[in-house]
């Protein structure tokens, strides 16, 4: 089975000026790959990462938005799949990283670790839906998937990760949020 940080390394090869929304464990692994202004770690409430991402996608239709959401987080906001599909932003790629656990809260299992999120997204009306459990397959497809006209939904089936250190003050540094706002407002910088 894949590991989240392996998947993110693959994904990062295809990321240039996209806004990347990541929270909790996904944010820790994504930030390990390097600082970039266009990372959005402003969360405030579990489950809302996908809603933040939708707002960004609607606010900047000229820029692609990549959401890296955990499975526990998506379960807290399943309705977002319907909302996103209805709003139909072409520039949104919504990943769920499915490790079957609430990793940042003691690694307890989610209620149904094998729930089929891709089927839910397909039923909600996403334009494209993918489901990856094999790293070689994801490596082959990742560049294509993040360039599709959205909304795109992608499940990454991964194993629970090594223990992580959650440096929340660093992740949620207000200076990081201000830099992102400055970059996204009219006249802001263009590159990640």
């Amino acid at each position: 089975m894949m590991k989240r940080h392996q998947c993110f390394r693959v994904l990062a090869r295809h990321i240039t000026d996209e806004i990347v929304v990541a929270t909790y464990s996904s944010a820790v692994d994504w930030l390990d790959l390097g600082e970039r202004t266009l990372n959005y770690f402003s969360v405030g409430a579990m489950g809302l990462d996908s809603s933040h991402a939708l707002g960004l996608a609607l606010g900047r239709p000229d820029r692609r938005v990549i959401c890296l959401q955990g499975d526990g987080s998506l379960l807290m906001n399943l309705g977002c799949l319907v909302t996103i599909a209805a709003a139909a932003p072409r520039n949104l790629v919504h990943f769920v990283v499915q490790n079957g656990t609430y990793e940042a809260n003691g690694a307890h299992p989610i209620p149904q670790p094998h729930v089929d999120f891709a089927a839910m997204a397909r039923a909600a009306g996403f334009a494209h839906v993918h489901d990856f459990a094999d790293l070689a397959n994801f490596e082959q497809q990742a560049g294509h998937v993040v360039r599709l006209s959205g909304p795109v939904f992608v499940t990454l089936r991964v194993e629970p990760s090594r223990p992580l250190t959650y440096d929340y003050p660093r992740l949620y540094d207000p200076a990081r949020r201000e830099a992102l706002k400055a970059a996204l407002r009219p006249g802001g910088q263009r590159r990640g």
Partner: protein
Amino acid sequence: MDADLVSDAEEEIRLKGAGIIAAIKESGVEFILSVPDIVTSGGLLRPIARDAHFRLIRVCKEDECIGIASGLHYCGKRALCLIQHTGFLDSLNAIRGVAVEYAQPICMMIGLLQHDPEKAPRDSPRYGVRIMVPILDAMGIAHHLINEDADVALIRPAIEHAYAASAPVALLIGRRPSPS
């Protein structure tokens, strides 16, 4: 007549939806994020849904509005969350984190379901309405009661202040607005 519209025969019109919508437009709001609320359904949401000025995003649950509004704000876009007070109560953690702790201008227009507009919300016979103002006060969220046409003048300054101060605001709709 739709069940969500104020009837002239039944009730004197004291709050016009058209005036509220004009104030929302004057505030620079482009996006309306909403779960339907019977208080504001006929007088606000239906005309907003027909109004090309706005992009209406219908969400499944009110806390989604808070996240979407945050993302829009990062891009310099103004949004209004049009929800019912029950949805506000359901979204308290999102409002706590995204709006209050991150000091973001999340603007909420909140219908007070089954409220008696002749009473102050604090004195409402409805428990859910009665606790609204104490909760907003405890969270440090500015709030204004929009109960009569004269109150509509509060809307634009409240939204402008929210963006200038980067702080949330709650506009409490105390009675059903008429659609015109």
